[in-house]
């Protein structure tokens, strides 16, 4: 009980800290932050339930008015923008990522976690963010997808990094990778 709460809270803090790392810019000129890497790591390291709870806790604190989103944003206003589908999709993405890592135990963890991050942290996330944007901004499927497409290469890099980090963490602290214990 205490251990679960401590891990959930510390990973919520980790998402916030990653959002404030200096962003690196892709060749396409799109800046990417490490915040969604934090979402993926919550799923791959904590597993489905605890990972989703860490993300919900993080979002609750953002809604309450702490400037924890990348770029120091926060408050209730961020949930009213057409991009808020990403925020609402974050817990689901962490859950989906976590459940794949929990269920699929064959193969090296860094590969499984990387694939899980692609399916959960990109596939599931965009499956929520794009329809939300279509309704909120009143756009068609093609236009919405085109607007979001530039972010996908960065997300793929983050999914690979999430897989590598999860594999390395499993070697360093096997008992702490709750998705596999």
């Amino acid at each position, binding site marked *: 009980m205490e251990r679960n709460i401590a891990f959930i809270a510390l990973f919520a803090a980790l998402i916030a800290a990653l959002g404030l790392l200096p962003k*690196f810019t892709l060749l396409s000129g799109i800046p990417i932050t490490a915040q969604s890497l934090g979402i993926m790591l919550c799923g791959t*390291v904590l597993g489905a339930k605890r990972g989703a709870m860490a993300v919900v806790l993080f979002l609750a604190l953002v809604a309450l008015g702490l400037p924890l989103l990348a770029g120091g*944003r926060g408050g*209730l*206003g961020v949930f009213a923008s*057409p991009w808020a589908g990403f925020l609402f999709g974050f817990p689901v993405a962490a859950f989906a990522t976590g459940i794949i890592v929990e269920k699929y135990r064959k193969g090296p963890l860094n590969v499984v976690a990387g694939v899980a991050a692609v399916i959960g942290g990109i596939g599931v996330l965009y499956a929520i963010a794009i329809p939300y944007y279509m309704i909120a901004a009143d756009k068609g499927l093609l236009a919405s997808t085109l607007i979001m497409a530039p972010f996908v290469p960065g997300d793929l890099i983050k999914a690979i990094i999430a897989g590598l980090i999860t594999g390395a*963490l499993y070697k360093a602290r096997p008992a702490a990778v709750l998705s596999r214990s």
Partner: protein
Amino acid sequence: MLALTLPRKTPAHGIRASWKLLALAVFSALLVPLENLWLLAGFLAGTVILHLLLGKGVLRYAVWMMRPIALFGAIILGFHLITNDLAAGFRIILRMLTLVSLANLVTMTTKLSDMIAVVEWLLTPLAKLGVNTHVFGIATAMVIRFTPVLIDKATALGESWRARSVKRAGWRIVMPLCLTAIDDAERVAEAIKARGGI
């Protein structure tokens, strides 16, 4: 850590947090189905006047909080210039500006502790079902305490990387940062248990 609450007191600070949140929810629900351009513009004007009535500097702070929206507005307008449907573009932008600025206004005029109190009140039905809602307060306090700790750790890791390399550390410090978070979590869990648990 800094919250997004306005540093100065305004008349809106005195209104109960639950009332402000309820008013925001009702108003947002009413505004979303509106299609009339003039009506939407009127509501945005009303929102601006509300900011001005609350005192000096409130509007400037509100505009500062809207930074990320500006880029989005430009994309939307550009898109609708191409598709020749400017009215639809303005409709989306007006509605979004009003909704986001009103939500931000609630954040700006409500203390963090009052917000947490509202969440705990909303969770009371769960407490009656036997869920330990006290946990939310503990977890919240832990996130608020440990976010600056992890940020400091990330800064230190980045600086020691720079001391050894000409390149920026980037993602390579994420793994040690995760280890810090894991080790801190284990220690905090032990400390809570040693003090009688939750």
